[in-house]
């Protein structure tokens, strides 16, 4: 996507991409695991509180959401209501996404969301069977505590839904963002996953780390899924 304005090669191996939202299919298709991404446009937050409300309790999506934004951020902002009714947004940080796996297929279908942002990615199986077939990809936040950098990218709160019912952390926030990032592309439209690739590389060395360490006196809870196993 070299034709996209502002793209640049950060280093020999890292490419930086500026994406205008709502993201178009061609721009999403061009993203590869390990690319660095900044977003401009509208991003909404939704996690288990919102998912349950809409998918399980018969709630309705806010009017116009799907036209305005196709980016779902697994996030709870540090935000505080002001006297004039607006909200001050301090830091913005993602929450671990794998917990929301069970909602994603239905949610992507309902909202036509094409980019999911969060912490730590989802399973490769989710990418292959849920995300890629729906033209959706996953971006991970960096670090993961880049609350101040992401907070800078939030230009304003366009809307907030169900704040009384769900609280600040679980409410649906609609943020207007500018050069919001950085994020790293985890999954692409082929179902590849950066986390899976990196995890495989790390795993190659793991057994050797235990070489020479003697066996434990007792086994422990958690080393087995067989409830009939003894500790001894």
């Amino acid at each position, binding site marked *: 996507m070299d034709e996209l304005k502002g793209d640049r090669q*950060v280093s020999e*191996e890292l490419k930086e991409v500026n994406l205008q939202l709502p993201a178009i299919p061609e721009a999403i298709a061009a993203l590869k695991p390990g690319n660095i991404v900044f977003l401009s446009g509208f991003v909404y937050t939704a996690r288990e509180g919102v998912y349950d409300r809409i998918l399980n309790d018969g709630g309705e999506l806010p009017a116009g959401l799907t036209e305005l934004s196709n980016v779902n951020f697994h996030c709870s902002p540090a935000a505080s209501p002001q006297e004039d009714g607006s909200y001050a947004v301090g*830091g913005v940080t993602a929450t671990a996404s794998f917990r929301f796996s069970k909602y994603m297929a239905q949610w992507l279908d309902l909202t036509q969301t094409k980019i999911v942002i969060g912490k*730590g990615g989802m399973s490769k199986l989710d990418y292959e069977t849920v995300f890629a077939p729906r033209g959706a990809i996953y971006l991970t936040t960096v*670090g*993961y505590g*880049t609350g*101040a950098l992401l907070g800078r990218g939030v230009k304003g709160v366009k809307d907030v839904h169900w704040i009384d019912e769900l609280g600040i952390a679980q409410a649906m926030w609609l943020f207007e963002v500018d050069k919001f990032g950085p994020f790293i592309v985890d999954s692409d439209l082929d179902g590849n996953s950066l986390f899976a690739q990196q995890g495989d590389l790390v795993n190659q060395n793991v057994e050797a780390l235990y070489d020479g360490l003697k066996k434990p006196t007792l086994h422990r809870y958690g080393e087995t899924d067989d409830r009939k196993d003894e500790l001894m």
Partner: protein
Amino acid sequence: MISTELIETAGYEIMKKAAIDIPEDYLDGIKATQKQEQNTLSGYVIKTMIDNYEAATEDRRPMCADTGLPRYYVKIGDNAPLRGGFTGIERALRSATARATADVPLRPNRVHPLWRTEHNNNVGINAPEIEWSFEPDVDWVDVTTVHKGGLFGTDYRMLFPGDGIDGIKRFFLDTMISFGKRGLCCQPAIVGIGIGGSKDTCMQLGKQAACLRSVGEPNPDLKIAELEQELMEMGNNIGMGPMGFVGSSMVVDCHIEVGYTHTGGMPVSVHTFCLSSRRATARLHADGSIEYRTDPKWFTPYMRRETVEWTS
């Protein structure tokens, strides 16, 4: 005089400082791991985190939006002229927490564990926690706040004397590898290890070791200090960096604290204080002045006393 009003002023200030300004010792530690890091992706993550610390301090906004579970550690000198009583201190720190949550702003994280109801101010039943300790022959009060994430990166295991140091290494590796994958424990981290005590003190010691000692400050027991160094190197040789990417940056420092334990056991806990290691301390002097710092100085010789009598 150290009044509850003074405690509240200090509590409010350290809540802000902890949330916004990365402690200098941790920043130095991160920069040292950055120098060793050869992997491009891992190096990019660390560079971005350093940018984030700078942005937080410049903008006066929290470095991480996950407030963790904000809590306090209070150390009271035997001769401190308190006014307002101990429950006054607890009330003042609750009030400081609620006000800082609204003003910084901090994310209100604290909810009822069953009903998930909240007061939007990080205050509730048993929250924020306040741990107390005492110090002989001084007239000040130290108040430290720690904001530490709460979901991943901590584990506990009952080992046995026969497991020895190998058992500790095995458990340490298990914890770092399992929580390091995808960066769930937000490494590179200060790793705190509690060894001994009863199960609850073992957890408590490990948590305090992670959160209440400065990077670069070894345990005064030389053999324990050697083990700290060995475990740190072991962690950084796993082959993993931030976010679980290939790299060498897992452990910024390793701190071990011990407590006398049951003759038949060796309980061990491992805790990780994350890339946004948030702590700040205020010393309230008898004349009503307040000094702020980032080193909690929690583990005094008195805290680590060995027997019935002690010299301070």
